[in-house]
């Protein structure tokens, strides 16, 4: 009986794994029940062959191999899949154009883990990758950036916003804002629009992203005439109770609570503030993006919430609409977030730079790296994308673009 049960379990597991594999091959996505967009465990990184099929017809076209790294499974799968699909949309668009550059695109899973990111990077090297696109999250990106710097690969990250990623490495560039940049911008934005003078901040002191934004914000706030009346922290996304932090802000009389944190704890804070009848203005950074897409989220909690995000998925310009359309076909209906838009812009930035630098098939990855670095840092180089127009880069790899703040009204983003 015991053996029979064990066999039954084994058989069930094999079947389950096989089922995952099948799903993964159908366009690389398997949004299973309830619109969840995490790829299942069996998927070890989807890949696209679009570049191969389209590349053959135009002779003389240069093939550029872009290798992406990000978490397709695990806790951060939402972000990884968004960057994966977002870039795929851009790759498909470029390959459909009559362009001299065709892109081959492959994406490897790092499960939001530094060591696995290195493995993913190694397997991309075996694939003869030309340019590294990623990683999606800061910690793995830091690990990979050390390697690409030594091996001389050009690297562009869609969303790893820590300054440590680019510091001291000429080959690593960011398409997202850096953390300190967001903190300073937030302080200026609040002051210029006279939203409030008494500010409370609740941030995650176990997280480099959150701490980075907070420190820059706290340094800039006095220059802008803002008074930070309450600063409270939490150390773990899994700790659900924020009543102390919220009450601290309330008793300090803060008119605005700045939340440089991700949307999951932020949604708890919004609820618990409402529970104690505290209704200040809430202002978030780009980590807040995604709060509206949480399943079961009470949209009324987010009414009036302001956040800085480079991408407004509710915008109606043609490029955004087309992007959202194509994206949803890849993602089985999951709405794109800013990570997706960052990914899309990354591929276009690499493409524009490659065109400008005159990349050809004979170049080694070292040559491509040098050529792309000089293209990116050239004063005449700028890229128009979904997350900003006229994006330029400085030699330290940081992007310069206009931040956009939006306010949530009736469950959608409205530009401020």
């Amino acid at each position, binding site marked *: 009986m015991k053996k029979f*049960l064990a066999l039954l379990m084994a058989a069930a597991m094999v079947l389950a794994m096989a089922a995952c594999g099948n799903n993964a091959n159908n366009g690389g996505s398997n949004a299973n029940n309830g619109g969840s967009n995490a790829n299942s465990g069996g998927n070890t990184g989807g890949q696209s062959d679009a570049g191969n099929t389209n590349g053959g017809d135009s002779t003389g076209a240069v093939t550029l191999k872009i290798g992406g790294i990000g978490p397709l499974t695990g806790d951060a799968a939402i972000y990884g899949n968004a960057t994966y699909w977002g870039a795929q949309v851009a790759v498909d668009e470029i390959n459909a154009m009559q362009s001299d550059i065709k892109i081959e695109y492959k994406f490897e899973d790092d499960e939001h883990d530094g060591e696995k990111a290195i493995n993913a990077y190694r397997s991309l090297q075996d694939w003869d990758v030309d340019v590294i696109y990623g990683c999606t999250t800061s910690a793995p990106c830091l690990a990979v950036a050390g390697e690409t710097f030594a091996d001389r690969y050009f690297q562009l990250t869609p969303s790893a916003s820590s300054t440590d990623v680019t510091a001291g490495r000429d080959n690593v560039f960011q398409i997202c804002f850096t953390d300190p940049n967001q903190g300073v911008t937030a302080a200026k934005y609040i002051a210029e629009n006279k939203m409030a003078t008494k500010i409370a901040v609740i941030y995650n002191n176990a997280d480099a992203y959150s701490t980075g934004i907070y420190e820059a914000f706290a340094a800039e706030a006095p220059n802008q005439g803002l008074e930070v009346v309450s600063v409270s922290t939490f150390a773990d996304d899994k700790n659900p109770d924020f009543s102390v932090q919220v009450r601290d802000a309330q008793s300090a009389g803060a008119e605005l609570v700045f939340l440089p944190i991700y949307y999951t704890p932020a949604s708890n804070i919004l609820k618990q503030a409402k529970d104690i009848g505290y209704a200040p203005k809430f202002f978030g950074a780009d980590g807040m993006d995604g709060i509206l897409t949480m399943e079961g989220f009470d949209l009324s909690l987010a009414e009036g919430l302001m956040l800085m995000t480079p991408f407004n998925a509710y915008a109606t310009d043609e490029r955004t609409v087309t992007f959202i359309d194509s994206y949803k076909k890849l993602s089985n209906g999951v709405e794109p977030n800013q990570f997706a838009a960052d990914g899309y812009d990354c591929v276009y930035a690499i493409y524009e730079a490659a065109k400008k630098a005159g990349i050809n098939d004979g170049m080694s990855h070292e040559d491509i790296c040098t050529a792309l670095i000089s293209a990116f840092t050239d004063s005449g180089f700028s890229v128009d994308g979904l997350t900003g127009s006229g994006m330029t880069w400085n030699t330290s790899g940081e992007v310069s673009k206009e931040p956009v703040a939006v306010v949530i009204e009736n469950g959608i983003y409205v530009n401020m």
Partner: protein
Amino acid sequence: MSFLSNVISGISLGSIYAIIALGYTMVYGIAKMLNFAHGDVIMVGAYVCFFAVSAYNLPPVIGVLLAVALCTALGMLIERMAYKPLRQAPSLAVLITAIGVSYFLQNAALLWWGSDPKKFPAFIVVGEQNGVSLFGGQLRITYVAIVTVVACVAIMAGLIAFTGKTKMGKAMRACSEDKGAAQLMGINVNATISMTFAIGSALAAIAGVLMCSAYDTLLPTTGSMPGIKAFTAAVFGGIGSIPGAFLGGLLLGVIQIFTQAYLSQELADAIVFAVLIVVLLVKPTGLLGKQIQEKV
């Protein structure tokens, strides 16, 4: 007034820990094993209730009952598949298995339900209100907090009555004291242990629903941290003791909130665990734990 608010927050958080700790302590008391998968059964219970209420639009009461029923079945299944074959094995093997089951449940949830957070629906409301305001709005108590505290006290009283008065409860206590002797007296030890897991898992489902009603984010890892805290609470109060788990849970919640509010937010967890260490140094069996003489 903020002091009173903190007391209320602490008691409401502590009651959740207490309900989870009651499950831990039941299983430990009778089966003499630490069921580390308990926290993840909580998570499963919360997901079941979430899908019943949000996706299938069932009434919340049915959702809770469904969660209790499924978790009870799951608890018995885990016991049957993972722990029963190890009844004679060294306790370390059982402990490692329990950790394995915990990871299995977390990853199965990740596979089925995805890594994106779900927001648990607020259904403990009266009319449009989710709580009562006192002293002109200075003090607010949510209904969830009231329900949690009441449920916690009721469950504790129920368990004490059950283990003290009923035949099954007496069998449980007999098994807890000496499995071999209990078997000789005609008690079905295996059935008794299964029953214990059933009760523990049913409590886990209730804890899951209440926890997610109060703190509404639902993730595959939702149960792990509260599970560890509740285990701490159970040890704090004296593992194996039902009133001990209740007291330990409440104290842990209040200490946690008070440390956050008055000492240090960064060090809150460190201080909570430091208190535990001090208590165990002074009283190794926990606050209400009984000193059991080992027979030689």
